[in-house]
């Protein structure tokens, strides 16, 4: 039996969410429905680079993003990134299907097949807004224009003052924002407030919001998800790509759970959107089962290789764009990495990182569906020394096409296929909380004779029919 293809990078977009690590402040309450928020966190020691992808879909003019940050950021610490980085990380680490083909029991021939990955692209939006300068117990520590964003870094002494400042600046912020802001002020954190400069945005030619990145040093390895819950309405999704040097990242104040993976599932998952739908409902079912109290690991692998690959690993240039500061700078003596063209199914061998010395990049992909009640605290992380690879990979086994009478082995083989397909269907039903009978209907079983009665062959004379 030979392993073949790798399929379907699944866009990690499940459910709907309104906010992310900070909150979006909009004048309109409507149209704030985002898909899963995505964050890249690069960390080694206290050095941290965070990238946030704005999936805001409301009116650009009404948009602003408020994120608590540990220090007043210099202009050079802020960057407007490329959404492609997120797409690449998503595609590389996405849940995947692997297909195997049974050999013909008569011929033992190996079939091979390949399938194209599909990585849907979330829609983007544009933004705009005017800044009000008047402060009320609020200090504007710095203000910059970076790319299409107007950015102010605020410090505040009182949450009421900050709320008032934001309101006076023309933003209708959620009713209890002051309460949500207070703990960050007391921790002496600053607030990164970004709006879109429409004129600059026109110059860039981008119609969508590009991700914001910032680099800072902080002993806190955390993501401030609580602020985004101020205007929450039901569970929210966050996908975090954690890039580190030593090992897997997990949350230290919540459970981190590996999603069920590496099991055989019915082959119809290959068709159309079936796999995406399966993954969505499977994730939903698992999150519910954990009472929305767990963070799920979807992928953990050394960035140098993959097996099977849903997409090529990121090149050193792409990694630097993602904020991986320990990977060789582009103009240092870097050996260009030979990247193969578009093969979809293969094992990439581990490859050395440029810049002398192996400085690995480990990617942990975490997916959390949270509610205000089940995640009372911000997410705190720790990097473990765990280096055991993990991926959400699901296996499809295609039965061989063979007539029951083709050879003596064919009949028992086809019977085992039926049994196997029933197991796969039950597996699927358990994972997704789906209806087993609906799944059975979807299964197109090869024609096989009905099950023999138990007493068939009991008397040694074979045919009881």
């Amino acid at each position, binding site marked *: 039996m030979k392993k073949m293809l790798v399929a379907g990078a699944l866009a990690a977009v499940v459910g709907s969410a309104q906010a992310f690590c900070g909150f979006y402040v909009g004048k309109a309450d409507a149209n704030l429905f985002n898909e899963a928020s995505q964050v890249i966190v690069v960390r080694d020691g206290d050095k941290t680079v965070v990238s946030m992808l704005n999936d805001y879909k409301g009116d650009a003019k009404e948009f602003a993003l408020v994120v608590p940050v540990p220090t007043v950021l210099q202009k050079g610490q802020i960057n407007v990134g490329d959404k492609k980085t997120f797409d690449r990380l998503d595609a590389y680490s996405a849940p995947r299907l692997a297909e195997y083909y049974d050999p013909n029991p008569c011929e033992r021939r190996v079939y091979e097949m390949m399938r194209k990955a599909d990585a849907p692209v979330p829609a983007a939006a544009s933004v705009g807004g005017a800044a009000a300068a008047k402060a009320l117990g609020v200090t504007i520590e710095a203000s910059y224009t970076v790319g299409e964003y107007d950015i102010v870094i605020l410090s505040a002494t009182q949450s009421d003052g900050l709320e008032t400042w934001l309101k006076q600046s023309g933003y209708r912020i959620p009713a209890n924002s002051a309460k949500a802001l207070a703990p960050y*002020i007391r921790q002496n954190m600053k607030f990164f407030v970004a709006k879109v400069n429409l004129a600059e945005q026109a110059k860039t030619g981008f119609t969508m919001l590009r991700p914001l990145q910032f680099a800072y040093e902080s002993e806190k390895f955390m993501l401030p998800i609580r602020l985004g819950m101020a205007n929450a309405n039901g569970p929210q999704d966050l996908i975090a790509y954690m890039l580190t040097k030593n090992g897997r990242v*997990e949350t230290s104040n919540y459970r981190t759970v590996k999603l069920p993976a590496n099991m055989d599932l019915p082959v119809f998952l290959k068709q159309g959107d079936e796999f995406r739908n399966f993954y969505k409902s499977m994730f939903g079912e698992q999150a519910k089962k954990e009472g929305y109290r767990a963070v799920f690991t979807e992928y953990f692998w050394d960035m140098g290789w993959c097996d099977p690959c849903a997409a090529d690993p990121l090149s050193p240039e792409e990694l630097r764009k993602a904020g991986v500061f320990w990977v060789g700078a582009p103009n240092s003596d870097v050996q260009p990495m030979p990247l193969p063209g578009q093969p979809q199914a293969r094992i990439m061998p581990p490859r050395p990182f440029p810049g002398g010395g192996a400085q690995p990049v480990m990617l942990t992909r975490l997916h959390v569906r949270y509610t205000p009640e089940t995640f009372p605290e911000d997410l705190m992380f720790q990097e473990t020394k765990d280096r055991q690879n993990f991926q959400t990979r699901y296996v499809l086994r295609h039965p061989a096409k063979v007539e029951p009478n083709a050879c003596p082995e064919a009949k028992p083989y086809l019977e085992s296929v039926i049994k196997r397909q029933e197991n796969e269907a039950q597996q699927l039903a358990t994972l997704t909380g789906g209806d087993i009978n609906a799944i059975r209907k979807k299964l197109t079983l090869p024609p096989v004779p009905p099950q023999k009665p138990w007493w068939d062959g009991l008397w040694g004379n074979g045919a009881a029919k």
Partner: protein
Amino acid sequence: MAIDARIFQIGFQAILLTAGVLLRDFSLLPLQMALALASAAATQAFWLRVLGLRGVGYLSPMITGFGLSLLLRADSLWLHPLVACLAISGKFLIRVRGKHVFNPANFGVGVALLALPGAWVSPGQWGNDLGVAVWLIGLGALVAQRARRDDASWLFLAIFLGLVAARMFQLGHSFERAWEIFCHQALNGALLLFAFFMISDPMTLPDRPVARRLHVALVAVVAFSWQFLFYRPNGALWALLCLAPLVPLWDSIWPGKRHNWHGNRSLQNIVAAQGKIPG
């Protein structure tokens, strides 16, 4: 005669471990656990033989083996037995006036985190389910009380959680939020496990009650600071480990009656009496 409190502790640890492996997605292999226990017992046997000690049983290495299995995660098979060996050896070798300085499991975890590759501790992995907490408290209290050092567990929890509550207040959380966060902290399985099974270890706490309380209070304050002022995980484990060398100092300032397990002559007293290991 009462049963040795450690029997309860071993039983309870075994229940917890089983529940954890079955219900909590622990990345712990049964073989890792078996190797930890076997290695701990073998190391104990080795040192008892080398030092010619008699009348000392194997309950302590079992507790250490289970404790390491509960706490330590590893991506290899050799790590658990190695750490168990180091932990038990540490108990025999690092002694002051015949009393071992470090709680063996605590010492093992510290060494593994600091010096060994592929070892980690998952403080969030117990989750915060009420059921787990109740079980931990209920059964843990039993063990702690039988070990007659029950004040340590409760004092540690009171001070640590008191500081957590004070921090909520200082950060200006609304009452509802503060209560939610407090519950989240107070129901942390790893914290309760530490309080009932590690800091309550009568052998590595100061002998005089007043010194014991002082030491436990220090551990709680350092653990809190580590976690909430320096934002590092596993505050309690590090605090206990780093402060353990102070215990001999407290014992010399405030000498007290040494703890003795029921039905099992204290290793420490034997060691001290025989003068096998200079204090």
